[in-house]
């Protein structure tokens, strides 16, 4: 009787496995099953064990159901089944069995729970001299401050590989959530509260992280990317970011003039110029970033033009208004900003 169901069952199993563990998982920029840190690896391992246990129970229940559907179908002429009201040993069995399994899972979970009950969360005893970075969630972008390096940037968090980085999470408005699936679990970014965690990886690369708590209109485009690089590269990057904004040349001069004349300066900072606004991202080195609008566009000269021409078309609801500049002015502004490497 089961033979009839074997093929569909095998197919279903294969599809299930393929869906749960797609072949691209390893190449994924944002899958917890492509871990690149000790914390993410430990969680992935615990997850696989738990899924394995769940899988056994899944197969047991679904297998029993399929068997009964085939075996106990009512047949004409057969008598009424014998009434059975219960059987205590079975009840005790399926109470104690799952309890033991869960106790096992609980035991495996404990070592991953963090060690410092006083701290916000998951901060082991810190090396005092560790690199610190403050991540501030805004609707809908990430502000990144390195107080010891005197660097302020947005949406792209550079870290050195092979050393722990202490991350402080703050919010300028509503609740956001900081999540880099390949580097560890998420931690919420909450106004009126500072959460802390460690970032650590030994593998250079780019790690993607979406905002993981609904934070309003443009929640979808609030992407963080972590750029992990060797210490020397990281220090070179930081040194370059510390520089004031590059002086413009050519068409970009008109761009700078526009930037300083228009209301751009109310919201944005360009270090080394009178622009000192703090509402929007620091643009001192915006040309060196990979994306615009917290991940909505790749940072190319053409996209910079598109963004400046009508940010509300690219990212509706963004706090950056559309200015209706002439095409020539937009081009000059784009040339200036793209040149701020």
């Amino acid at each position: 009787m089961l033979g009839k169901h074997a093929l569909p069952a095998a197919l279903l199993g294969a599809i299930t496995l393929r869906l749960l563990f797609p072949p691209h998982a390893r190449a994924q920029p944002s899958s917890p099953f492509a871990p690149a840190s000790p914390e993410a690896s430990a969680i992935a391992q615990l997850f696989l064990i738990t899924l394995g246990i769940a899988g056994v129970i899944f197969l047991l229940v679904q297998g029993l159901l399929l068997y009964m559907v085939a075996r106990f179908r009512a047949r004409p002429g057969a008598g009424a089944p014998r009434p059975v009201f219960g059987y205590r040993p079975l009840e005790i069995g399926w109470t104690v069995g799952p309890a033991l399994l869960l106790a096992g899972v609980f035991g495996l979970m404990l070592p991953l729970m963090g060690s410092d009950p006083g701290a916000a969360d998951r901060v082991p005893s810190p090396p005092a001299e560790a690199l610190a970075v403050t991540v501030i969630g805004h609707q809908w972008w990430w502000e990144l401050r390195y107080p010891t390096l005197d660097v302020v940037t947005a949406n792209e968090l550079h870290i050195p590989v092979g050393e722990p980085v202490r991350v402080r999470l703050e919010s300028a408005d509503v609740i956001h959530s900081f999540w880099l699936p390949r580097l560890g679990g998420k931690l919420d970014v909450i106004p009126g509260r500072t959460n802390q965690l460690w970032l650590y990886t030994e593998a250079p690369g780019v790690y993607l992280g979406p905002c993981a708590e609904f934070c309003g209109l443009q929640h979808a485009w609030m992407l963080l990317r972590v750029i992990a690089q060797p210490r020397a590269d990281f220090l070179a990057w930081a040194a370059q970011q510390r520089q004031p904004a590059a002086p413009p040349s050519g068409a970009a001069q008109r761009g700078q003039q526009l930037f300083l004349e228009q209301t751009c300066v109310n919201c944005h900072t360009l270090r080394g110029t009178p622009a000192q606004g703090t509402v929007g991202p620091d643009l001192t080195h915006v040309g060196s970033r990979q994306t615009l609008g917290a991940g909505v566009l790749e940072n190319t000269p053409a996209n910079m033009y598109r963004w400046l021409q009508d940010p509300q078309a690219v990212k509706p609801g963004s706090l950056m208004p559309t200015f209706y500049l002439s095409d020539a002015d937009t081009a000059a502004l784009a040339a200036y900003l793209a040149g701020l490497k």
Partner: protein
Amino acid sequence: MRTTEQPYAEPLPRLSSAEGLLHWVATVDHKQIGLLYLLTSLSFFLVGGFEALLLRAQLAVPGAQLLPPGVYNQLFTMHGVTMIFFVVMPALLGFANYAVPLLIGAQDVAFPRLNALSYWLFLFSGLLLHFSFLAGSAPDTGWFSYAPLTEPPFSPGANVDYWLLGLLVSSVGTIATAINLIVTVLLLRAPGMTIRRLPLFVWMTLVTGFLIIWAMPALTAALAMLLVDRYLGGHFFDPAAGGNVLLWQHLFWAFGHPEVYIMILPAMGIVSEVIPVFARKPIFGYTFVAAATLGIAFLSFMVWAHHMFAVGLGPLVNTVFGAMSMLIAIPTGIKVFNWLATMWGGALRFTTAMLFAVAFVAMFTIGGLSGVTMAVVPIDWQITDTYYIVAHLHYVLFGGSVLALFAGTYYWFPKMTGRLLSERLGHWHFWLTFAGLNLAFFPMHASGLLGMPRRIYTYAAQPGWPELNLTSTVGAGLLGVAVLVFLWNLAWSLRAGPPAGADPWDAWTLEWATSSPPPPHNFTALPPIRSRRPLWDLKHPEQRDPEHEHG
């Protein structure tokens, strides 16, 4: 087989021909109010389902431009609020309204006029909420609307107010219904219907009633506090003025987690009625199933912070709430195993009602198992607020609650209308639903594990995401077709379905001991109640159930 006692009353004339619309507006009869609840929640189900189809259409391909972000956010919020507060809860309460007095041999609920008030509060709160679409400002902050996104600086429009007032009004009606059902079950049982003989649907409704009166006020209070913040200059959830945004989360989930069980316990009750009848065996381990219900209800008040593992409450709090959440799996497992044992060795009749009930066990198990993975705190840090959660909650609420609602509909429709639903259309409805739900919701586990967060109106193509999302959209489309088949079945069977008679399923509980539909006073005479299956005893006097069934 039928014996001398013949308790069936004469069928009534068709309700629609009786006194028209006014009769339905003025009614205080629990059966009519139950039907009103069911019809109204069916209407909201169509609205919420249509919203879901729009959401899935937008997500079918990366970068789609079908819905602007503001509209998408309104639709996902309204889909969740509608399905939870205006479909699953009231539909289950509708079945409770209709069936509980019949199942315990009562004439009506304890407070019929309060019952009518509850229904009208429910209807008008739903209309108030949906009026927001006409006003152009539907709620757009998600069904649990975390502060401070709901505070005036971030949500200056009326969107949040519609959500607040809609839920505030509906919560009052729900609390009244819960009191009504509790008093009915405790005081109006027929002679012989002891607590230990209560049908399991009644048991689970009783427990749900207590869950509602203990959990719902937390929501009502939180809503009132937010209203004070928004209109009277309060600062409960305003950190700049010394308020605390986490207070909202604690209050909301103190309601919100028991709410999950408010939406699943009565569904489990329906399944616990349907499976025995169509397996032709009494429920296995009655006492354990009833006790497991109490266990789930008790634990459900001690697990709310598992919605907040990513908040940073500290290792101790997280560990304790993780452990409590794991414990809930034990009584839940007891139920699943007892349903399996009830089917074991039975003579299974695969009516549509039974198909839905068996599928409930299969699908709810998937939702339960993914729920256990979330109780493991570090795993939750990775999967909370991703599509994995969306998959989980839909396996519980669609694969669980909604399938049970369909099972209940096919099971009790003959009692309510005097006609059977078409089994042929029913099978189409079932298989389309079964295929659609797995196609729509299973791939969401995978998209979540590939890092896709929930509540995003669009996405860039990361490896695997487009295929998985397209599959989910196709599945949602199948579900839409399934619902159309269901509607056609309802409409056709109401006019032309085969006459049901009093007891079409050869069932054992008291509602089948009266005509279909029952007269206003429900019973002309009741059979003697000497066990949990009074109609079995009536039909099989030589083989009555033992006085004290074990288990």
